[in-house]
Structures are given as C-alpha cells and as structure tokens.
C-alpha cells in the first residue's frame, strides 16, 4: 500500500477515479476550488480522456462514425473504452480491437442496432485494414522481370508473399458499397443508394498505391487465387483453387495485373 500523499498513492487514486472505481480517495487529496466540487474537476479530465480516445477512433473509422451517427458513436465509444483501455500513448495504435468489439455479445446485447446492421464490424475491419495498409512499411514491389529467369516447368511451384501494404478482405456484406455510401454522406452527399444486403458479398484487395489506399473489388476466382497465395500455397495449387470457385478464372490476367500493381513483395522457388 502506497504511503498517503505519495506520488504512487496519488496516481493510484487518480487512475481509480478516471476509470470509474470511485472518487473518494483522490477527492480527499484535492485542494478545494471555490464553488466547484472535486467530482466536477475530475469530470474535466474524464471528458478530456473520452474526447481524446473518441477523436482518435473517429479518425480511424470515419465511415462507421457516419453510419451510426455522433450520439451512437460516443455511447459506443464509452463502452469500448471501458473494455479496451490504451496501454500506451501512441494513439495511432488505439482502437484496433473495435471490429472484434462490434461482434461481441457485449455489444450485440446492448445495442439493438447491431442486430439490424450486422455489417458494422466488417466496415470497421475495412477501415482498419485501410489505415494499416496506408501506414505499412515502405518496400519495393517484386519486379515482374523476375519471371523471365524462371524455367517454365518451375512456375507453378512458385510461392508469393504479399507486400506489407497490400491485404485481402472478404465479407458476407457489400462493405465497399456501404463504405462509399457512408463517406459520401459524411461529405453531405446523400444521393448514394444503399446496396442490397442479401447475396451481395465483398471480396476486396486493399492496397497502397502512390501514397493512397485503393480498395479494389475482385472476382471470386481472383480473390481465391490471391487468398491461397497469401496463405502460402504454390502458384499451381492456388490457380486450381481459383478455377474451382470460378470456371472462367484467367490466371495470366490476374497475375499480370497483380504484378503490375505491386501486390507482391517477394517470391520463393521450391
């Protein structure tokens, strides 16, 4: 137990008050301010913390913020902050558990809207992936000229690594269309129609190109192919998986497009 009035005691009691575990211990150490109860003084800090964390998450999830609205977003953030407190002061890393939170029973039981709009978590996933790709390490993409040196019989055993600034995202919901609608609405444009939710899955490549993130919808076959490569399968095996999901899958087309866009960082021969 820290000595009364010590730095450790002050910080322990202050943290307790800010995290909703009671004001009494710290209030006893606060010099009275004329006409202002200690709880109000502490509220200023509680508000500042909520505002900082919420501002950070709003910057990370602008489409989700536009979809749910200011009031809902703030309430949702109060619950999120209570369950997911930052462990350090780098706010660029804060809020990354939000997609999982939006799928948790805690959230679903508390917010009826979560059940009416089951795509919230995947919208958040899309926005988080976009941020991560935007701030991924710089790396030169694989030069397509490498293929010239590979004997044709060895091509199908090649394995490719996606570049750190490229990733894949699948959702049972049309998350790219919903994202575009929400971002247009955030800019005051309400003319973008909501997409049909049923039978309208999204299969996306998220990639940083020329300093900006692009979200590119892929066919089922192209997505399966890249997904399989990303999971470590060889080119031949990945192409077979893609043909199985889409019979007009065009291997040379998707491979040349992916190489020219810089989707891959490296390859290995085996």
């Amino acid at each position: 137990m820290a000595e009364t009035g010590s730095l450790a005691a002050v910080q322990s009691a202050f943290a307790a008050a800010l995290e909703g575990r009671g004001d009494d211990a710290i209030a006893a150490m606060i010099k009275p301010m004329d006409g202002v109860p200690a709880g109000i003084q502490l509220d200023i800090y509680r508000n500042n913390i909520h505002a900082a964390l919420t501002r950070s998450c709003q910057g990370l999830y602008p489409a989700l913020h536009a979809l749910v609205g200011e009031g809902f977003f703030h309430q949702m953030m109060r619950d999120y902050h209570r369950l997911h407190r930052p462990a350090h002061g780098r706010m660029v890393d804060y809020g990354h558990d939000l997609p999982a939170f939006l799928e948790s029973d805690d959230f679903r039981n508390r917010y009826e809207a979560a059940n009416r709009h089951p795509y919230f978590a995947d919208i958040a996933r899309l926005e988080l992936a976009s941020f991560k790709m935007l701030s991924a390490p710089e790396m030169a993409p694989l030069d397509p000229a490498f293929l010239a040196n590979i004997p044709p019989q060895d091509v199908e055993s090649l394995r490719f690594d996606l570049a750190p600034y490229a990733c894949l995202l699948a959702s049972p919901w049309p998350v790219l269309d919903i994202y575009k609608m929400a971002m247009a609405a955030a800019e005051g444009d309400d003319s973008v129609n909501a997409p049909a939710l049923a039978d309208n899955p999204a299969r996306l490549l998220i990639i940083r190109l020329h300093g900006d993130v692009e979200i590119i919808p892929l066919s089922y076959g192209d997505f399966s192919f890249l997904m399989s490569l990303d999971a470590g399968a060889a080119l031949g095996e990945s192409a077979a998986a893609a043909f199985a999901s889409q019979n007009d899958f065009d291997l040379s087309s998707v491979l040349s497009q992916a190489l020219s866009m810089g989707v891959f960082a490296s390859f290995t021969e085996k």
Partner: protein
Amino acid sequence: MPLAQQPDKPMPHRAGIGLKVEHYRDVLNGRPDLGFFEVHPENYMLAGGPRLQALQAIRAHYPLSLHGVGASLGSKDPVDRDHLDRLKALQDRFEPFVVSEHLSWSRFEDHFLSDLLPLPLTRDALAAMAANVGRMQDALGRTILIENPSTYLEFTHAEMSEPDFLSELVKETGCGLLLDINNIHVCASNHGFDPHAYLAAIPGSAIGEIHMAGHAIDRYGARDIRIDTHGAPICDDVWALYDHAIGLFGPRPTLIERDDNLPPFADLLAEAQKAERIMAGKASPSFKQPDHLAEANHG
C-alpha cells in the same frame, strides 16, 4: 559534456505553427514564411506511408520541433523504453531542433490515461519526474524542454509552487523549459494566482520555446473554469501576457498551437506574424534585458 548531451540547436527567434495533416498542402504548395513547424511525435510512430513522407518533405524546407504527449514523464514508474526507442528513431530521421514533453503524467502501471494529468508538486514527484527526464535525455542524447501544463485541480499536500518545481527540475536535470503562456493564463484563472508573479519566478535562461493557444471557458454555477482546448483563436489576455513574457525574457521561438476547429491556414499564419511583430518590438535596441537573464539571449 557527459554522454553527448548536446544542447538544443540554436533557433532564430521566429514563430511556427503546430502542423496538422490538414496543413500539408498549404505548407508544401505555399511555402509560408514561418520559422518552424512542430508535431506530436506519437502521430508519426508509423512504419511508413504518406504521413511520414509529407513530414519528410516539409522538414526539407523548415526546422522541426518534436513535442511529445505520450512519454508520461511524471509517472512513478520509469518511462517506457519502447516509447523512447521510437522517439529516438524519429529524432534520428527528422533531426528536430528541439524535443519537448510535459510536466504531467498519463501512465499508471499498464494503463494509459490519455490526458496530461496534474502532478502533486512534492519532493517525491520531483524525484520521479527528474529521473524520467534524465532517462529521456540519456536515450535521446540531448537536453529536452519541459512544458507547464493546464490544470484543473491542485493537491492539498503540494510542497512548492509550479515555477519552483520547474526551477528545481531544470537544476537537477539540465533540461530546458517550454513556457506555455496560455496554460499559465488558464491555471492563473482556475487556481487564482498572479500570472506575472508566476513569470517572474521562472528561470528565464532555461526557456527554449514558447507556446501560444486558445482556450474555452466552461461555467460551473457562479464561476468560470478555463479549459485548454487549442480550439479557438488566442485571446487578448494571452497576447498581453505573451507581450509581458517577451519583455521579461527576450524573444524565443514561439509556436501557435491549434488542434481543434481548424481555421484557414492564413488565420494561423496571421497569429504567427503577430507573435513575430511582438518579438521584433521587444528585440529593438531600446530593449533592456535584466542582468540575471543576460545569458538568455546569448546561450
């Protein structure tokens, strides 16, 4: 000089602006006539991408200051080593003319409370803060500046005033001070002290930078509480206090901070120009510097 503790690079007595993502285009296209820019290093603790590249491009044309908000130097525990490593990497890449942090704490054990929380002004807190300032200066291989924060409460068991606490910190660690004029005004109003007396008690030669910002006034019952928001233009009272501080200490690199309700860039530029006019006025030959501050202008 122990452990390559380099003093901060000398800076012209000019004004700068806190750089926001929203300003990149104005700065890179317009090349405004400003002395420097300042960023929170925590916003650039990223692996790569356009934000770092924009900062690199801006750094190619302007001096840069790194103003930390995440080190929590006032915590009872040692400053997070990982955080210092990341800060050092940014320092090595961007070569700032100054690195600063706050007289405050945010971290309690493994919880980060994302605000600049007030320290009890006790010997105990001074020892913890001085140890962490020392750790940060050792990790960066330079002296840093420590900023006086806005506070909304004081502790019953304080053993010294804030200027005395800062003076002791300067003596013990060799750090410099980042004097935030708006924070002095906010605290003077909230806690009922004389801001001129506060300035008179500050060791002027340690001041390496000045911050200027706007604040908000909340009302609780019959009284006002001033809140440091960085969301409004700098008010007349804060300009008057700045004028007084420059008169006392002489010109210092002065930053216009604006984080919320961002106005057109030209409005911030106008505030920076106003600060430079005040500095130029005080730097005129008729300016008589108090003897005990003589080293301030030559240090």
